């Protein structure tokens, strides 16, 4: 259980997610890493160059900072402390509780990410240089995929979790393992008693 809580701290070191944009005139694709507290270039100046591309279709600039960069790290620190506390004081039922909490919080995080992506892809400047419409006449959006790959005009966008997300998943999985192991030990104790 301690291990489970500790590995979630890897989020402070490794990126959570990566969005990559491929196009013929970008032999080295443009890319952006999403950390729990930052957006970072995959290669120098990528975010600046994504912004330059996106201004043609009226997309907003990727902000330097968003409120989530403060909320998410705080959340992770709190759940980490909670996890450690549970590991020392609690029993396996608490482990399950932590597991459920983490799954709910992660889902909320992903939903928040989706909302941001949707806004980023659909809230377009009305004076956009190039306006595209879908076959049904509605304004075309440029939302990158939440997970997976998608063609957006001349770009192919890829959106996949990175090492940080895998560590978070591992931490959550470990807590579930701890729950089962704890329950097994408890039953064994009951039988011998």
């Amino acid at each position: 259980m301690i291990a489970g809580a500790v590995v979630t701290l890897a989020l402070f070191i490794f990126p959570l997610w990566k969005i990559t944009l491929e196009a013929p005139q970008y032999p080295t694709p443009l890319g952006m890493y999403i950390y729990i507290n930052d957006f970072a270039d995959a290669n120098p100046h990528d975010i600046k160059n994504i912004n330059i591309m996106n201004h043609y279709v009226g997309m907003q600039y990727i902000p330097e900072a968003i409120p989530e960069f403060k909320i998410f790290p705080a959340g992770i620190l709190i759940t980490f402390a909670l996890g450690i506390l549970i590991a020392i004081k609690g029993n396996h039922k608490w482990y399950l509780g932590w597991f459920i909490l983490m799954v709910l919080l992660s889902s909320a995080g992903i939903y928040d990410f989706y909302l941001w992506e949707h806004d980023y892809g659909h809230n377009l400047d009305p004076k956009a240089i190039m306006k595209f419409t879908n076959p049904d006449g509605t304004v075309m959006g440029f939302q990158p995929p939440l997970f997976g790959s998608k063609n957006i005009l001349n770009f192919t966008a890829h959106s996949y979790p990175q090492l940080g997300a895998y560590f978070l998943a591992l931490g959550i999985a470990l807590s579930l393992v701890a729950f089962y192991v704890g329950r097994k030990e408890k039953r064994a104790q009951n039988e011998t008693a």
Partner: protein
Amino acid sequence: MKSIIKGLAVLTIISTALVSCNNQGTSSNGALSSSAAEKVYVAPGEQDEFYAFLSGGYSGNLTVYGLPSGRLFKEIPVFSQFPTSGYGYSEETKPLLNTSFGFVPWDDLHHPDISQTNGILDGRWVFVNGNNTPRIARIDLSTFETAEIIEVPNCAGNHSSSYVTENTEYVVAGTRFAVPVPQRDMAIKDKKGNFKGALTFYKVDPETGRMNLAFQVLMPGFDYDKAHPGRGNSHGWFFFTTYNTEEASTLMEVNASQNDKDFIAALNWLKIEEYVADGGGTKMPTSYMHNVYDEKKHMATSTQINEVLTVDPTEVPGAVYFLPTPKSPHGCDVDPSGEYIVGSGKLSADVTVHSFTKMMDAINNETYAGDAYGIPILDYDAILGGSVQSGGLGPLHTEFDSEGNAYTTFFISSEVVKWKLGTWEVIDRKPTYYSVGHLMIPGGNSRQPFGKYVVAMNKITKDRYLPTGPELEHSAQLYDISGDKMELLSDFPTHGEPHYAAGCPAELLAANSKKIYKLEENEHPYVVSNVADTRVERNGNEVHVFMAMIRSHFTPDNIEGIKVGDKVYFHITNHEQDFDVPHGFAIIGANNSEVLIMPGQTKTIVWEPKKVGVWPFYCTDFCSALHQEMQGYVRVSPASSNIELSWSLGED
């Protein structure tokens, strides 16, 4: 026993049959040409194996090609103004072309040489010489741009240049046209004995590559034609061919060709360096310019220097000798081991090769054949390593592979001849089209040649390509030299007149080639790093526009308050930080050129409006889908008007 003989007979028959099969195979033209095509074919998306830097001769510039494809990648402006980028027109680059004769916007660029460490190409810089108004330039091989130009005082026709020693300790300049030193008003017919041929050594800073004139050896007034450094055992020596040891001054084609032998001058620069370090030499007043480009400031500055340290070669014992060499030698080439010094008598059929070991023996035993102006002439037979009975005519230049072979061009008989060092036997010969001058094997004048290809650079083109009127580009041929026999692979036109060239493996340079200039490192005095700082300032009739550019607009793009008679400086910073997104700037009626500005760079161009009106400017490089919209206006009012300066972007 019988069966053995029978067996041998059978073997002989089989092997004879095999040999004749092979002969049939190689005589098939179709098979040959298809394999040649494959060898030079670089598939779309693939890259070449070698960089080749070909001198542009009278274009004044240096061209960059790929081998084996023969594709032109870039023309690097060096000694000539280049409106394509604004080189020599922009305020930042004009100082690079300053000389003691004033602004000289052209030269005749001859002999590229890549910097070396331990006799091996290190790919940091390439040095080139300007022959006409004597100069040496250094090109930075991370930006492929001219970084420095230094003038050569007391020199005329800087031809035996710009070769580097094996650790790039020095780069040399030599004098092809002997002149009075210092210059003075005198009768031309009094030339003999009164002119000098200065050989100048520039110390190269090992970190920055900056050149500084260390010393100048004032040699007798012969014509110092070509040069190469010693390497290995002969490191510390430099060799220069001479012609016109007759010291003629008129109808030179006849009068400079009378002596059966001229000289190769052998200079022990280590000895002279020591002599100078001990306080030797004489300081002479002179005047020459040293122009340095600062990559962070994106700007060059000129400094005038008024003194040169000269050395009288007769005052440094053991430093200078003459090696008699037949028939007005031109090329002066040193093999990878440093043992052989090849002097190509250009009016001869044979190639003369001196032995460094024998030269040192002759020096130690004082085997002299006389002296010239107090400089010992070594005995020809004592120093001769060998002579290549080539069967060709008019040998000029020699390069080497790593297998102990030499390749010499023959101008008159128009061919490349391959011969063996040491045995002097001719191995192969192939025609060139036509009248070849220099040739180049990547690394072919270093300790480590990459003997896969040789490029022959010809002086005469005639019918090789579709005709383009009387004036033609020169032609080059590429040969595969990986086998015993040379194989002609391809034929391609070259720009200007390539004299020498230098080549190296692609991986030596490709990874270090810069993609952009970092905006945050831009120290240009007129940089605008932030669009909020864009502005227009007036100082009398000088107007300074602090402008920024990014896809797909200029900031500002509307300027008012300019008057006829103003001198408008557009200082423009490219705010892009993406590879290969330059923007250009051109304005109607500019009396200079456009400027092409790389990402993160600042350039300045001056515009002097002469007519009242509203005048456009625009981006010249198709930068984006909205490139056509990347434009703006300047309102020019009469000189007497009092319209205030104003500027804007995106305001109606």
